[in-house]
């Protein structure tokens, strides 16, 4: 029956199928979306990412509660004061519970206006949550970036590994739209996963923190931005990682390289920081370090990039990798 249908079409005339004609970016986008959703491991990995991020945040919330309770105990011993718990925690043991916490954070040392705000606001309510508390929703990003970076590499490099890329570039021989669509999809998905996981974390962390009378609300200074920027961080990191995967065209090599740049380089910089100031100066501009500033909900330490600067630096990394990968791929044989 189908043979009969095709044979009726005079091949010399215009396309036979009246439904749709040529390639358009929206169509390529749809195609890439179908690809993402029809390989089961992708969907599973995304679900795992959300779970792990929420789990980590719940752990961070729990750790903050422990810290607050300890501080409260100490506070009652020295000078009993009702509302001091929230502020006391980070002052007592700075940065101990959450790895992302900025060490200099503390109510007593306002370095600029933002720090002043965090000291007292929330009209009529309990004392404002410290940045430690406010960053609990985004604390899962530490592990989330590992999974999202791997996923971004796998999504693109597996096309080379399986040969699928030949089908992809046969259908979209200009290549750029296919790569842009892939990047757009991984960016949007990563944003939704990041911001979504951070918001779920927020909902999960609230009752946990509440058990120690620590309050956390979307209205708190920087909380909403931190939740949304968890998504921004992962989206930009995903584009960065997809660029690596596209350039290397190899899943294992791409994942190792991405993890190396995201996790190992900052560690190396920390180990070597005594060799010279320039090392820690440069380390601030590493993708993950710059990106970490995005999810900050408190004061920026002196010399650190601000939230906006951090975002711009990570964005620049992502843009460079995206453009390089497109330029290189257009020239390559596949």
């Amino acid at each position, binding site marked *: 029956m189908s043979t009969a249908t*095709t044979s009726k079409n005079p091949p010399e005339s215009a*396309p036979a*199928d009246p*439904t749709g004609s040529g*390639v358009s970016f929206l*169509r390529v986008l749809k195609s890439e979306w179908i690809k993402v959703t029809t*390989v089961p491991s992708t969907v599973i990995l995304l679900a795992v990412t959300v779970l792990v991020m929420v789990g980590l945040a719940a752990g961070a919330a729990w750790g903050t509660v422990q810290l607050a309770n300890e501080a409260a105990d100490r506070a009652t011993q020295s000078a009993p004061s009702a509302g001091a718990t929230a502020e006391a925690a980070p002052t007592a043991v700075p940065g101990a519970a959450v790895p992302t916490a900025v060490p200099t954070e503390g109510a007593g040392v306002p370095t600029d206006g933002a720090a002043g705000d965090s000291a007292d606001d929330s009209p009529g309510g309990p004392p404002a949550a410290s940045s430690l508390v406010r960053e609990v929703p985004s604390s899962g990003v530490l592990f989330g970036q590992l999974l999202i970076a791997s996923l971004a590499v796998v999504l693109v490099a597996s096309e080379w590994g*399986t040969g699928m890329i030949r089908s992809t570039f*046969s259908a979209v*021989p200009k290549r750029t739209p296919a790569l842009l669509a892939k990047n757009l999809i991984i960016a949007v998905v990563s944003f939704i996963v990041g911001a979504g996981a951070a918001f779920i974390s927020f909902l999960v962390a609230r009752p946990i923190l509440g058990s120690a009378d620590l309050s956390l609300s979307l209205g708190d200074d920087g909380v909403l931005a931190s939740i949304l920027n968890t998504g921004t961080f992962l989206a930009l990191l995903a584009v960065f990682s997809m660029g690596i995967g596209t350039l290397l065209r190899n899943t294992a090599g791409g994942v190792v390289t991405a993890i190396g740049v995201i996790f190992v380089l900052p560690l190396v910089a920390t180990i070597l920081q005594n060799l010279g100031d320039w090392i820690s100066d440069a380390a601030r501009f590493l993708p993950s370090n710059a990106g970490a500033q995005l999810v900050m909900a408190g004061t920026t330490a002196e010399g650190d990039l601000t939230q906006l600067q951090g975002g711009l630096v990570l964005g620049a990394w992502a843009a460079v990798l995206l453009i390089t990968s497109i330029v290189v791929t257009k020239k390559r044989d596949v």
Partner: protein
Amino acid sequence: MIEAHGLAKRFGDKTAVDGITFSVQPGKVTGFLGPNGAGKSTTMRMIVGLDRPTAGSVRVNGAPYASHKAPLREVGALLEARAVHPRRTAYNHLRALAATHGIGKKRINQVIEQTGLGPVAKKRVGSFSMGMGQRLGIAVALLGDPRTLIFDEPVNGLDPEGVQWVRHLARGLAAEGRTVFISSHLMSEMAVTADHLIVIGRGRILADAPMEQVIAGGGRERSLVRSDDAAALAAAIGSDGVEVRRLAPDQLVVLGLSARGIAEAALSRRILVTELTPQTTSLEDAYMELTHGEVEYESQGIEQGGKETPNHP
């Protein structure tokens, strides 16, 4: 319609395709024949823009592949059996590719039916046999109902029934007026499928002619003649365009003269002919003659080829 002009591809210092010029016409099946490593696949990949030519250009239906608005509607290509993510189902693979051109479900189901993929369409491609993988590749090629089809070794891994199916499909597509370009290293397959042959060896075109002409060895007839007076017969028929080779004192091979012509010459000079056998060269013979010396990995130690056959340029 495919037109290649001075098309070349080098990988490092190795030349895969050496500046070839050819055209593939619509309405017939054109076979692309050559030994392994001759440059067939590279040429086909360049046609659809997967490999970037080092020099020269190739146009399909009047324009470079990548500049078509709807490439899949112009050219359908089966390049490799596996250009598919193994964990995706056949149906979803087709759906993803169809989406780029806004090709609807109806057409997807049509090609699934046409290629006999129905029972396995919802299965992961990773579990497919090689034959099923080939059918899926052909389904992708047919998806856009294109005017030009390129099949790289389509019968690889197919069972005899599948081989016959590909043959009928190719002939049917050509009969509809489409351009069909099929590569193979199997001469026997090309002999029954193709109307026109392009023979390639070491990246260069060795022959580009209708099938009968290639088989006939450039149009020259060939007869084996045995006669007690072979020398006299050779002198009698020797003229322009006729080549006589003496195999034995009483045995000749005559090229370029019909059996009837030889018989008439012998009769007029009253020479006794004891055997006169017109020889049809098989495609295989023609192919061996053409590609001799062009095979990249010739088996060593076998000394039989090439004694009689002159080396073609």
